[in-house]
């Protein structure tokens, strides 16, 4: 009986964040007035759109590098791939595959840079990757705003040649001749993956569209993560995640493995951003990647993950709960308070407030464990 009570207490404490979100959602859903068919369709669409991005966060957590805010670098690489593919008018699944292949070397280079920087900031990876994201965002904006186009802004002296990445589609380029437009219509790629294989399932009076092909890809990625954990490289990452010093003494190349973890995460984030944007159908060249890291990390933490431990279940629970709040909060706020915008503020306050509490609790728990083990070594009661 005491064991069961302890187990329940432990379960409630370990999963306090998703439990709070479930309670809030249970309160907000009836208030919002949305039908269950609509909510199910929205959740299926958002799960298909966002899961890949959130899954890409699992590998750095496994390697003890915390939450990879640097995934925004991968998102930028994916967007560059999409810009080029749109210019070349490659459509459908071949367009998505080509965009992914183009983004791979860019994501690999950015991930390598990120990994090296994070190796110099051990213990402060999250804030370092967050700021690095801003820095690379500046370089991305410079490249996309000044170095891509029909003609170049910079010229090589004595040769008269422009420095530019050639993009010749006038629908993509600003009227001045260089720089990509703010919004790009991904007409040829829109829903290319979602519509490749789709089921329509009746749900009450509505019909639910299930993008089976996207879910198949996500399932394949989940199987990849499970398999990867069992490989030598995956085991090395887990060892590093548990204790870097012990892993180093065991002969594991700690710094090299950490870089590999970030490179893999960045490349997967590039693929995730391509899947995200093909579902949306429009790319905001300078904004689409901004909130990628924040939203993905928020979703993962809401799913019950911590800075040092995350599972595939945390991803799906987190994406569902986080986006459920996105959908129902404005209408619930409008019913409750009279203004949809206040409902949106409430969602932002609760979502990020709970994440902040979860991070603080995690840091406090780790401090308590360290103190306990120190006391144990000193032989104190």
């Amino acid at each position, binding site marked *: 009986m005491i064991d069961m009570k302890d187990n329940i207490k432990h379960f409630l404490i370990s999963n306090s964040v998703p439990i709070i979100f479930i309670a809030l959602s249970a309160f907000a859903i009836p208030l919002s007035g949305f039908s269950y068919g609509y909510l199910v369709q929205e959740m299926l669409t958002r799960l298909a759109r966002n899961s890949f991005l959130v899954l890409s966060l699992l590998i750095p957590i496994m390697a003890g590098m915390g939450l990879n805010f640097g995934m925004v670098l991968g998102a930028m690489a994916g967007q560059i791939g999409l810009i080029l593919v749109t210019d070349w008018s*490659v*459509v459908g699944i071949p367009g998505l595959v080509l965009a992914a292949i183009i983004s791979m070397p860019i994501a690999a280079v950015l991930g390598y840079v990120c990994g090296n920087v994070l190796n110099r900031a051990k213990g402060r990876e999250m804030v370092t990757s967050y700021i690095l994201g801003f820095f690379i965002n500046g370089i991305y904006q410079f490249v996309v705003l000044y170095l891509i186009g029909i003609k170049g802004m910079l010229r090589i002296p004595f040769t008269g040649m422009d420095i530019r990445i050639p993009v010749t589609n006038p629908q993509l380029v600003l009227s001045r001749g260089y720089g990509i437009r703010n919004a790009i219509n991904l007409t040829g790629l829109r829903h290319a993956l979602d519509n490749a294989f789709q089921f329509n399932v009746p749900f009450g009076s509505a019909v639910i569209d299930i993008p089976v092909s996207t879910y198949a890809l996500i399932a394949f990625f989940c199987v990849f993560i499970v398999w990867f954990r069992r490989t030598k490289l995956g085991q090395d990452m887990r060892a590093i995640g548990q204790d870097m010093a012990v892993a180093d003494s065991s002969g594991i190349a700690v710094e090299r493995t950490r870089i590999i973890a970030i490179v893999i995460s960045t490349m997967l984030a590039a693929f995730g951003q391509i899947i995200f944007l093909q579902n949306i159908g429009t790319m905001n060249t300078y904004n689409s990647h901004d909130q990628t890291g924040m939203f993905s990390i928020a979703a993962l933490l809401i799913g019950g993950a911590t800075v040092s431990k995350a599972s595939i279940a945390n991803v799906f629970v987190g994406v569902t709960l986080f986006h459920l709040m996105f959908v129902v909060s404005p209408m619930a706020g409008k019913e409750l308070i009279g203004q949809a915008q206040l409902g949106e503020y409430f969602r932002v306050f609760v979502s990020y407030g709970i994440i902040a509490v979860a991070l603080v609790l995690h840091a406090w728990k780790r401090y308590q464990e360290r103190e306990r083990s120190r006391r144990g070594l000193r032989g104190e009661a």
Partner: protein
Amino acid sequence: MKIGGAVSARRFVIRVLVVAALVALAVSMYKIGREFDVIMDNESVVIDGADYAAMDYGTIIIDGDERRAFDMWADDRVIKKMVGANHRMTINVINEDDDSLIRTIERNITIDFNTRAEMLSISAMTNEAENIRTPNPLYSPEPVIIPDDNPPEGGIPTL
């Protein structure tokens, strides 16, 4: 030493093969997925010195997709998006008065990868001409030159 050298040589070969496979996949995706704007022009036209009269009325089927078959009358122009370079066009020339089929022409076309848009003459196809391409008035093969109307102060910067 020898074993280590053999392992790293094998690793290098595998990596080169993987990169080559990715490049080959990228090229094949480009060829398979490239979309073209194809203008079907049903005007009377002169190609290589020969006159071809416009088809009065007919239906056109691309790649056997009868759901997307479309009608064309004389002097019509239709823009269709086609994915990939190789396509089969089936032109059914129809008597407008009684909707009877006069004849069917089948033609394999290959779109030039160097263009974004091609203009094909239906008139030339129905008369079984060898060359069915006409100059595309909407597309210039030369890149669009944007004049330096408002160069930045001090001219265009150099490195």
